[in-house]
């Protein structure tokens, strides 16, 4: 089985010589580690070794992972699958959610963990298609830029994540992204204690930003697009026409309430919600998101949120 995976997975350095790129089926991960060269090498080797088995491991339990989560019950056997389940369980009693909502974040988190266990790194990030797991040694920090809309290359803000902050995961969700969304947010970015939790929370908040039944939103049953989608017959957003200011505010309000409840209670530390150029930021007091000094300025550390 591994034979097949090791033939299938692609692992290489990007041309910049710094970042490691790993790809297998739908998983696409970019890794960058900072520290002594020898430590970085050890970390990349550990990441590569772990990576080759991941897709087979997840697919072995895919049926389970595509079923709605429940608060208690059986746990899957794989480490990543367990991270997925743990990340979505808090929502299971209130909404429809499957462990797949946290798959990208859980993969990022797992790879980060094998890297930091294997080597001494000052900083590292694992970016799985926009869902990012972070490592920060004491005294280190990451500057993270946030993009208002992915088709407009301007940062609406940056945030500095310091080693003393609890944040170790960043995730973004929205209907413009690769996965299906039940909501209409262009992008919801969540900072949380780990990547799997950020991933699940971003999905939940992005789904909540919505105008149910609105005529300017085109929706299609998920199963009509992808017969084996975990979302089944639920309607997923295909396009959103221009909304009025009032409608944008109304849709964002619902998302903000959900985001606030998550920030207050759990591992979610901040959320930024975007809909048609309107941005709302939900921040508990201790987190700072600074307005960008210049919208075109690139951040020092290119963590692509």
């Amino acid at each position, binding site marked *: 089985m591994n034979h097949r995976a090791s033939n299938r997975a692609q692992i*290489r350095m990007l041309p910049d010589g710094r970042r490691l790129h790993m790809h297998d089926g739908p998983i*696409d991960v970019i890794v960058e580690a900072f520290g002594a060269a020898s430590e970085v090498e050890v970390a990349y080797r550990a990441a590569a070794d772990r990576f080759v088995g991941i897709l087979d491991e997840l697919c072995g339990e895919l049926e389970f992972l595509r079923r709605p989560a429940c608060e208690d019950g059986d746990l899957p056997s794989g480490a990543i699958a367990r991270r997925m389940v743990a990340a979505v369980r808090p929502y299971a009693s209130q909404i429809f959610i499957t462990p797949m909502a946290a798959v990208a974040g859980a993969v990022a988190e797992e790879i980060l963990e094998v890297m930091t266990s294997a080597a001494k790194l000052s900083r590292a990030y694992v970016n799985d298609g926009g869902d990012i797991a972070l490592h920060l040694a004491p005294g280190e920090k990451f500057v993270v830029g946030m993009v208002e809309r992915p088709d407009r290359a301007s940062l609406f803000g940056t945030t500095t994540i310091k080693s003393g902050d609890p944040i170790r995961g960043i995730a973004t969700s929205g209907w413009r992204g690769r996965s299906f969304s039940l909501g209409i947010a262009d992008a919801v970015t969540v900072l949380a204690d780990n990547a799997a939790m950020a991933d699940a929370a971003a999905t939940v908040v992005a789904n909540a930003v919505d105008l149910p039944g609105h005529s300017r939103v085109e929706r299609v049953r998920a199963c009509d697009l992808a*017969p084996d989608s975990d979302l089944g017959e639920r309607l997923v957003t295909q396009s959103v026409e221009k909304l009025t200011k009032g409608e944008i505010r109304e849709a964002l309000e619902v998302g903000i309430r959900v985001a606030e409840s998550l920030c207050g209670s759990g591992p979610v530390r901040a959320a930024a919600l975007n809909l048609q150029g309107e941005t709302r930021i939900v921040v508990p007091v201790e987190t700072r998101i600074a307005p960008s000094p210049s919208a075109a300025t690139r951040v020092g550390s290119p963590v692509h949120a």
Partner: protein
Amino acid sequence: MADDAIRCDACPVLCYIKPGRTGACDRYANADGQLVRLDPHVVLERAVSRGDTLVPFLEKSRDWDGALLSGEETFVTAIGAGTTYPDYKPAPFIISSEVAGVDMVTVVTEGIFSYCGVKLKIDTDRHLGAECSTVRAQGEAVGHVTTNEYGSQMLSLGGVRHLTGGSRHEGTATCDALLNLCNRQAVELKIDDGATVIVQADKAPIVDGVQEERMRVGCGSATIGMFAKQWFGKVDEVVVVDDHITGVLSEHQAGKLLGVPESGIALKGRRSTPGRYFRVAEPGTSWGGTNIDDPLSILGPFDGKIARHGLRLLMVSTTGEHHAYFELDESLHPVEKELPAALRESVERIRENCEPALCTVLFMGGAGGSLRAGVTENPVKLTHSVRDALTRVTCGGAPVYVWPGGGITIMADVSRMPENAFGYVPTPALVAPIEFTLKLSDYATLGGYMDHVRPLSSITSINRDEESHRRLTARPDNPWPMASEKSGK
């Protein structure tokens, strides 16, 4: 599973994919019930062009030794990228890669060119046909003869009038000829009231069944000038036969300077200046691009007052390909004799100095507004960006000449492009690769589809599957498409 969904077995996710949709990876799709790769891509690697050794792609991740593989740089060409016809969608591949610390974007698409054709340069002195004569392929008009250039005949084939303005069969024959020429295949062309020529990029033309070998080193007059010294003393008279200007040694300035005495020779044709004759014969595919097989047919009787018994005469074509040696008999008639060794050398020298005759095929096409709209929401901005040399245009990674003036009209040497870079659609029109490379920030400024920009790695990471894309080494004679010089102008 009903309704034509197919199961993709490329990876263990085993997606069911509906017609027209992609799987979870966005790389495999259901095209009318067939599982297809979306990205059968030609990827150029720069490594060898810089003298580095090629870093092979990892076949298996387990073979990875942890070393940093930073030696290669990759440029994704548009060949096999697919098109966005009718072009209201963003180009199928918008790829970002970091070049010297600047994020670069290459917008890769295969353009459908209704306005396109090829410019053919056929190295030959033989007469292929009169200017403006119709050039035919499969009996259909596909182009015309244009100018005669130095040692070459130019043809212009294709263009929208032949492609879509004439009969269905004319369009199909034109498209077929263009496609084959651009893909470096041989095509037989018949010129009205002229020659039949087999043309293939980078190969010698075959004119009326005879393969051309050499380009002439100069016109007949120039050849006299170049070789006069080598002939002096070894022969009494030399005629260099040329359809354009036939040269005569004893009358030519070069002969006069050496003190070559008059020979009493009489050339047919119209004398231009001393020793230079126009139209000694009709154009053709024989001696020096004339229609003569017997060189003596361009001579009148020798002047009995000047010519003498035993006078040695060399007649040679501008390429050295045809030659004959004569001596005058008692009645001053030229009698053919074997070429003396001393003269053989000069004939060889002429031949040596004639470069190999080749056909060169330049693809020419105009990127229409809709193709440009696949790159940016505001197509004219792309034109301006190309004009301002902020955006580099390439065809399959090969450099292009961008015509000045409006629009984006380009010419590219098909020999510098990867093999089989062209395709067609039944319109008929040619499908040609075209890439626009620019800084990411410039791309954003000109209204680019930023949400469709994807990292280079997302293309190249799947290279293990040979069907998905071809990795080629960039030609060392092509400038690297992402090099920092602004443009090739």
